[in-house]
């Protein structure tokens, strides 16, 4: 696995982040120069995360971007603004409940600006519409997403089968991540599935020790 993406969602205060960074920077991570650790905080914290990213050894991503390119769109953050802070952006996460068209527009805006979109999808039927050169795909496995704090564990063999189907549908060489209740317990079995290029980690990334364990187990 090469990609370890922490999606902090709307969970971290500035104080939480400072404490997270302090702890994470002291942890011993197994060294692998080809690995991508990407932290995706909320918009207000992007600057801070970017500023310390080099010191701590990770890259920065956003959790979403505006559907519009520029103009009178109060509260929105556009692709051209994100370009100065991030190399990656999560697009179409299931929690945002966006239509396929919205996801496609956002994905195209990322590509246009030179931001690598991490396109989340649940069902596999629209995969070909999302599979774009330059993008990273992330399967949010519906049978393995925590809901209301309840973790639903899926058999790794079923995950492997699902990932294989996805890899057969998308262009050769497309980076596909897995994003369903990743934690230090299931990462070992996920790491054995060769079709998984990386993981999108939600809740477990809020604890620096837990996130580091995931990275160290998978490398």
């Amino acid at each position, binding site marked *: 696995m*090469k990609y370890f993406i922490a999606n902090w969602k709307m969970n971290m205060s500035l104080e939480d982040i400072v404490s997270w960074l302090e702890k994470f920077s002291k942890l011993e991570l197994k*060294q*692998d*120069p*080809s*690995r*991508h650790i990407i932290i995706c905080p909320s918009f207000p914290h992007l600057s801070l995360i*970017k*500023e310390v*990213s*080099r*010191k*701590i*050894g990770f*890259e920065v991503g956003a959790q979403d971007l505006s559907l519009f390119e520029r103009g009178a769109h109060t509260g929105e953050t556009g692709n051209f603004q994100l*370009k*100065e*802070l991030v*190399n990656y952006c999560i697009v179409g996460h299931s929690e945002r409940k966006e239509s396929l068209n919205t996801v496609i527009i956002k994905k195209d805006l990322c590509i246009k600006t*030179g931001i*690598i979109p991490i396109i989340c999808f649940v069902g596999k039927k629209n995969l070909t519409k999302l599979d774009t*050169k*330059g*993008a990273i795909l992330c399967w949010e496995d519906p049978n393995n997403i925590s809901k209301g704090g309840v973790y639903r564990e899926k058999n790794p063999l079923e995950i492997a089968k699902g990932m294989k189907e996805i890899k057969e549908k998308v262009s*050769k*060489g497309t*980076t596909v991540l897995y994003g369903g209740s990743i934690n230090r317990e299931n990462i070992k079995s996920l790491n054995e599935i060769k079709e998984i290029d990386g993981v999108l980690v939600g809740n477990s990334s809020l604890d620096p020790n837990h996130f580091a364990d995931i990275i160290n187990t998978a490398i």
Partner: protein
Amino acid sequence: MMETKIKKALIIDLASQTSEVKSFSDLNSYVGGIGVGLKLYENYKECDPIVFSVGPLNGFFPFASKTSVIVSDDGVIEDLYVGGNLSLRIKFSGIDAIVLCNKSEENVVIDITNTSVSFKPEDTDFNSLGLPGKRSLIDMSGKEFIVQGYFSTPENFLEKCLLEKKIYGMCITGTENYKPINFSSYEKLYSEILNKKSELRVEAGIYPSCSNCPMGCGKSKVGEIGGNVLIHSLVACHFADKIYSDIGVVFSCLNVLGYDYTHEDLESLPKLIEDTIRRVS
């Protein structure tokens, strides 16, 4: 013959308008790009340097096309990556890095031909500098950092720092020639990597291309910000991350050029860079 055991830097002191080439054997473990740039920044920190650096693959392999720039933005160290032909010309000047130290008294244009440096007045005719076809022109006359009239940087830190140093332009002419030690293996590997175009994260376009890149994607116009340390030590294009984060490919490329880096060297690179940036911040 290309140096593979040491790194060479052209140190330019703007205050005294002098320059010298220095060799650093201790910089080899930093590989290139951000690593070498940060270490040189640390070495010359007292002189408030701006460091341009290239990596071992620049000039020799496709998509290894960027130049790393280390600059301090009000005490925060930033690493930027510029497209165009700058990396090629720095490499074929026979150096791995250019370190701009201190501050000029007058507005100045810096003209570098291989390792010889001359300082020209602000109103110098840019087209009269260097050797056409072998030069990279950095124009600051519009107060914006523009390479070859097209490529810029993603943020304005670099412009701000260059203008503070009263640098209004640079011309880098590189005319050295290097032949890889095992040319037939090199040629084969070059073709193999060029054929990996489908693994890039960009589509081909009709825009100006960076050196050693046939894509013309348009995405490199504004350069890049910090990302994966291996990619940015080789100073490859961020959109070629799948190719140049494949350790096997990286070793093949380094090996065919005569570098003898080990796995341990590359594995220790992230830590080395993190430690350096912590020291200089």
